[in-house]
């Protein structure tokens, strides 16, 4: 029996092709994560990695129903969002409203072909033309910016919505409150996705959030606070699409809490310590509902995936280190590999670029 809680609504309209695409996107998100860890272990990559392992359904499910011209602002744990945005338009389609895997890998490797020319690190990239907001490190800091983006869009007669991604811990920031309060007053199409993975670095949710559900924050603004099973890509899809339609129809902002669990350390530098501050049982439990397994079971039940095909690749239910390339469809491995090879070949920016672009109008 499927563990999926979903029983209809938006996802009913998805075609079998959509479902296969979603499955492949889940594979791609996970492979991106696994591949980077391996590249780093091989010494081909430096810098901290913030894993979205076990949280892929949130990224894939939240993005799948967006219009190409909708905006997003991903944070440190959402790097796959940069290339998954508008992936439906064709992974290698240069014109789609998302980044290519090459661009994202060039950013991860800190090369000049990164959209940000490697001026700021990790997830701090974006693209105005692709409707992706560039974040800083300061958590929740992009929410007011997102509100401003759609405020301007609405003035211009647009109907774009914006999804901002935030961890549960980030909801304690003052600017989270100021931005959502403003969005609620003006009924702006700002959807705040909360990736509630129970931990903020080394601090458990009880010390960050006083309510059982983070979605309760919505009550303070009189806006919808939806709760999705973050391990169930279709439940995420349904809840986010409810919020999207609500927003696009002018009813205003909402918060969508996606309950999940952080599979590894806060960053890979924290893996060893995380193994101490979180009990084995807790981690085992938190990782027991693999979003890929749950989704494949559902597809088999729906008859969209044959039991045989379902077994072909088994990226689910294993740790990042046990997984091999064989556990992923070739399309996924190939696409990511293109990105990696491109990034490694790409050059570092010229030193002089460090002095450029402080002001528009300068060199």
């Amino acid at each position, binding site marked *: 029996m499927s563990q999926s809680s979903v029983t209809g609504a938006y996802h009913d309209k998805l075609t079998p092709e959509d479902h296969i695409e979603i499955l492949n996107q889940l594979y791609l998100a996970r492979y991106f994560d696994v591949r980077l860890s391996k590249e780093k272990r091989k010494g081909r990559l430096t810098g901290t990695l913030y894993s979205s392992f076990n949280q892929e359904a949130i990224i894939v499910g939240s993005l799948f129903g967006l219009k190409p011209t909708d905006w997003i602002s991903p944070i440190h744990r959402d790097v796959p969002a940069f290339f998954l945005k508008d992936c439906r338009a064709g992974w290698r389609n240069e014109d789609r409203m998302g980044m290519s895997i090459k661009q994202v890998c060039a950013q991860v490797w800190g090369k000049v072909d990164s959209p940000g020319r490697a001026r700021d690190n990790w997830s701090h990239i974006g*693209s105005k033309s692709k409707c992706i*907001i560039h974040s800083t490190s300061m958590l929740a800091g992009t929410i007011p910016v997102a*509100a401003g*983006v759609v405020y301007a869009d609405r003035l211009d007669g647009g109907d774009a919505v914006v999804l901002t991604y935030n961890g549960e811990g980030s909801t304690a920031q003052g600017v989270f409150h*100021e*931005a959502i309060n403003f969005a609620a007053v003006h009924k702006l199409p700002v959807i705040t996705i909360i990736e509630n993975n129970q931990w903020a670095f080394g601090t458990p949710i009880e010390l960050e959030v006083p309510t059982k559900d983070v979605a309760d924050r919505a009550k303070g603004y009189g806006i919808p606070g939806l709760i999705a099973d973050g391990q169930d890509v279709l439940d995420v899809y349904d809840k986010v699409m409810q919020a999207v339609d609500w927003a696009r129809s002018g009813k205003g902002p909402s918060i969508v809490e996606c309950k999940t669990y952080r599979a590894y350390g806060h960053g890979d530098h924290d893996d060893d310590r995380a193994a101490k501050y979180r009990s084995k049982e807790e981690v085992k439990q938190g990782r027991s509902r693999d979003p890929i397994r749950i989704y494949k079971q559902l597809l088999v039940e729906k008859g969209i995936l044959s039991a045989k095909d379902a077994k072909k690749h088994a990226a689910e239910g294993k740790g990042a280190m046990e997984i091999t390339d064989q556990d992923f469809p070739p399309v996924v491995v190939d696409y990511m590999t293109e990105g990696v090879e491109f990034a490694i070949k790409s050059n570092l920016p010229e030193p002089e670029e460090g002095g450029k672009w402080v002001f*528009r109008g300068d060199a």
Partner: protein
Amino acid sequence: MANAPKTAERTTKNYLTALREAHFEEMERNPDMICLGEDIGILGGAFTITDGLQAKYGKDRVVDMPISEAAIVGVGCGAALNGKTVVCEMQFIDFISCGFDQIVNMTATYHYRTAGEVAIPMVIRGPAGAYGGGALYHSQMNEAWFAHSPGLKVVCPSSPTDAKGLLKSAIRDPNPVIFYEIKQLYRDRKIEEDLLSGDDALVPLGKAKVVREGADVTLVTYGQSVWHCMEAAANLEQEGYSAEVIDIRTLVPLDSETIIESLRKTNRIVAVNEAPMTCGFAGEILARISQDAFELLDAPPMRVTRMDTPVPWVEPLELFVLPSPAKITEAALRVCKF
């Protein structure tokens, strides 16, 4: 600058009116311009600078924001990212501290970290300055925080003509600009001027202005202190010294050339700022001059600033810690007699 002929036909205008005209003219010129701030719409601003602006351009372009400085700046940044030209009002510039992160880390760096992809045409403006009994939180000149934060231009006019012309230029500038208005000058009749309009009224950013010519000592400053320096210059005249007074008008980018040009004549400098001394902008001027124009200096470069204290409330305390014409005169005499 305040000596335009007064005749029946011509009517001079004050600093506040100049700022209001800049708002109306730029809103008219640029349909993508919006204003965000507390009480700027229905009320027309705490000081009436935006009086009538919402009535004319509507609630969507002149937005009464919640008391949320971080959101005012952040929302403005997002709107600018998405094609708008944004003017954010801080009801008093003192409250800019509540939106600090969104200014220095989000807005100021946007163009830099996107390698020039995204410019943020935004002005953050508000009433600033002491000498009015405004106490700690309605008297600040905190321009040095922003002069020290790369990616921000910093402007501070001392006359109606500059207030209008620099604000218009700041609004048209593709970069974020922190704009300091001297509230004690808002309604100062002594400095009223005839104002130009449209493009004729523009005053370029990054150009200092020699407001008084002199040969013995150069007084360099901006804002309210310009008038204190003019008074000091008059005092110095009595003592037989002729002071040149330079209003830098734009702190970032700084027009050092005009200062150095003046030093070629005077070989003496006193820099003045109303803000605390340590890491204030007067100190920045001294640092640049002593490094770049060392050989031009015949006397120690000096600064007159607020003591390193907050601005206290009641007059005797306030005047004790702030620069004054007397203090500037005294410093200038010391370098002149050096």
